[in-house]
């Protein structure tokens, strides 16, 4: 199990702040996202433009090919726009 947290446009598209999901051994972020997009229309819409998704695993920014073994928290969000 991994805790996913969503922010900004992604959070609004999916409709929840976060959720717990099962992760198969050897899964990368990209793999998990593909699976979630197939399971629900809301995820499919939120993840439609993959180039506009950014990720953090356990609060560190990482790429989509990062494996999720041992990860506790995965954050999925649009490119940041602070400052």
């Amino acid at each position, binding site marked *: 199990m991994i805790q996913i*947290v969503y*922010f*900004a446009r992604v959070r609004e598209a999916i409709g929840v702040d976060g959720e717990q999901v099962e992760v198969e051994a050897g899964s990368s972020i990209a793999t998990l996202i593909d699976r979630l997009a197939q399971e629900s229309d809301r995820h499919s819409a939120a993840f439609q433009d993959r180039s506009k998704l950014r990720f953090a695993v356990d609060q560190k920014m990482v790429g989509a090919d990062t494996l999720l073994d041992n990860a506790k928290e995965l*954050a999925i969000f649009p490119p940041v*726009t*602070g*400052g």
Partner: protein
Amino acid sequence: MIDVRIQAERFDSAALLAALEADGVGAIASFTGLVRSDVGVTAIELEHYPAMTQASLQALATEAQSRWNLPGAIIVHRVGKMMVGEPIVFVAAASPHRAEALAACAFLIDRLKTDAPFWKKEYRGESAAWVEAKASDNARAANWD
């Protein structure tokens, strides 16, 4: 001295600057980002990733201190809703040398724009829209790689 704060309350850049000035360094550069009034925006809202934000700004300040002689660094970023004219972010760098203070200040705000987990929503009267990230911001941040 590294002072990193994330807060909903309005901050006083003046007082923050005064604190650095009391430190005995020779040069202080600062940057304030405010909600602009000239583009039809009436308010903005800043969302962030609470579990990550403080650590990411702290890491930014620490990296600045590893690059420059920087006895003092301040980063203050607000979250929540802000009206036109209000300050959003303040960064400052204090160094014995002018060139280092100026470079570190630019580094802090350029990298904050691309590395820190904040998202900005703009309100124009009744309508609201998430701000799109700018390619020019990525280009500026990449100059520091």
